[in-house]
C-alpha cells in the first residue's frame, strides 16, 4: 500500500488515462515501426522486380529493333526476288535471232525466202485491278488450263521443185524445236522465166516445252 492510494479518485482516474495514452502512443509507434519493418523488404523486392522488368523491356526493344531491321532486309530480298522472277518470266526462252539462225541453217541453198513472220502468242498478262477495287479478271490466256505460249513461224519461199520443198519441210519436222509443221500452200510459179514452186510453211515452237541445250540440232538456240 502506498500513499498514492489515498489520492482522490479523480486524480487516480486522470493518472490512469495518462498511463493508457502513453501505452497507446507507444503501441502506435511500435506498430508503425513494425509496419515499416515489413514494408522495407517488400519495397526492396518490388524495386528489384521493376529493375528486372526494365531490363527485360530493354531486351525486348532491342530484339524488336533487330527484328524490324531483319524484316526490312527480308522485304528488300523479296523485292529483289520478285524482280528476278518477273525478268525470268518476261524474257524469251527462245531468242528470235537464234531461231532465225537455226532456220537459215536448216534451209537448203536452193530455197529462197520471200516472207518470214515470227509471231509470239502468249497468255494475256493479269490486268491491274480497276479503281473500284474489283478483283481483276484473268487475262484471256489465263482461263486455259495450259496457257498458249508459243511462237508461230510462217515462211513463204520459192523452191526449184517439190523435192526441195519436201527436203526443207522434212528437216524442219525432224527438228525437236519445231512442231505442227504444215504446208498450207504450194503452187507453181514462174520466176525469171523458170518454173519454180512457191510455198508456205507454218510451224510452231512450243515454249511450254523446255528443251535442254545440247540436244539434237539445237546447239545454236538459247533455252
Amino acid at each position: 500500500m502506498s500513499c498514492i492510494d489515498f489520492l482522490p479518485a479523480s486524480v487516480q482516474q486522470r493518472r490512469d488515462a495518462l498511463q493508457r495514452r502513453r501505452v497507446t502512443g507507444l503501441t502506435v509507434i511500435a506498430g508503425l515501426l513494425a509496419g515499416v519493418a515489413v514494408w522495407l523488404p517488400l519495397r526492396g523486392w518490388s524495386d528489384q522486380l521493376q529493375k528486372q522488368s526494365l531490363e527485360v523491356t530493354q531486351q525486348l526493344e532491342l530484339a524488336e529493333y533487330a527484328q524490324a531491321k531483319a524484316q526490312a532486309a527480308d522485304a528488300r530480298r523479296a523485292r529483289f526476288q520478285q524482280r528476278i522472277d518477273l525478268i525470268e518470266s518476261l524474257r524469251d526462252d527462245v531468242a528470235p535471232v537464234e531461231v532465225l539462225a537455226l532456220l537459215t541453217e536448216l534451209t537448203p541453198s536452193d530455197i529462197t525466202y520471200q516472207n518470214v513472220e515470227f509471231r509470239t502468242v502468249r497468255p494475256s498478262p493479269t490486268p491491274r485491278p480497276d479503281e473500284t477495287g474489283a478483283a481483276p479478271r484473268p487475262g484471256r490466256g489465263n482461263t486455259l488450263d495450259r496457257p498458249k505460249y508459243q511462237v508461230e513461224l510462217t515462211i513463204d519461199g520459192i523452191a526449184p521443185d517439190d523435192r526441195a520443198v519436201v527436203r526443207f519441210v522434212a528437216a524442219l519436222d525432224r527438228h525437236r524445236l519445231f512442231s505442227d509443221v504444215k504446208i498450207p500452200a504450194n503452187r507453181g510459179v514462174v520466176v525469171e522465166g523458170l518454173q519454180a514452186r512457191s510455198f508456205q510453211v507454218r510451224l510452231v515452237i512450243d515454249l511450254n516445252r523446255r528443251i535442254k541445250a545440247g540436244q539434237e540440232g539445237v546447239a545454236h538456240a538459247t533455252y
Partner: protein
Amino acid sequence: MRLIEQFQLPLAVLTVLTVTGLVLIYPTVKQAQAAQQQIEADRQALAAVSTRTPAQAEDDALTVKNRLDELPFRIGEGAEPHAVLARLADAAVRSGLTDYDITIRDAEHFAAFSQLPVQIVFRGEFEDAFNVIRATAHSPRLMRAEVIRLEREVGFDGSHTVNTTIDLSAFFLDPDADSAGGAP
C-alpha cells in the same frame, strides 16, 4: 468520448494496421505484381520475336541482289521512251541502217509490270534484220520481240531488199503497279 477512451488501444492498433497496410504495403505489393506481370509479358513477347539476326537477313538480301545484278537484263523503273528510242536508234545505226522508222506507242499497264509497245521498220538486207534483232535481244534493258516480219522485195533493177518490221515490248515497272499480278 468515454467509449473511445475505453477502446483507444484497439482503435489505435487498428488505425496503425490500416494506415500501414493502405499507404505502404498495398501499393508496394501492387507495384511488384505489375512489374512481375510486365516481366512475364515481355518474356513471352521476347520468345515470339524471331531469332533471325539482321545480319543474316542482310546477307540473304545481298545474295538475291547479286543474283539480280548478274542477270543480263534490267527492267526499267519508268517508261523512259527516250531511253528505248536511244537503244533502238543505236542498234539501227550500228547495223548500218540510215533509213528507219521507230514508233513508240502509249504504255500498257498490267498488274505486275507495264510495257511500252515499240515498232521499228526499215529496209535493208537479211543481215541487217538479224543485227537489229540481235542488238535488241542483247539490250541490257529488257525488250522482247513480239512479231518479226521480213518481206523480200524485188526492185526494178532486179535487186533484192528485205522490208523488216519488228514489234517489240520494252518492259518497265511503275510505282502504281501491283506486285501481285502475273507475267505472261
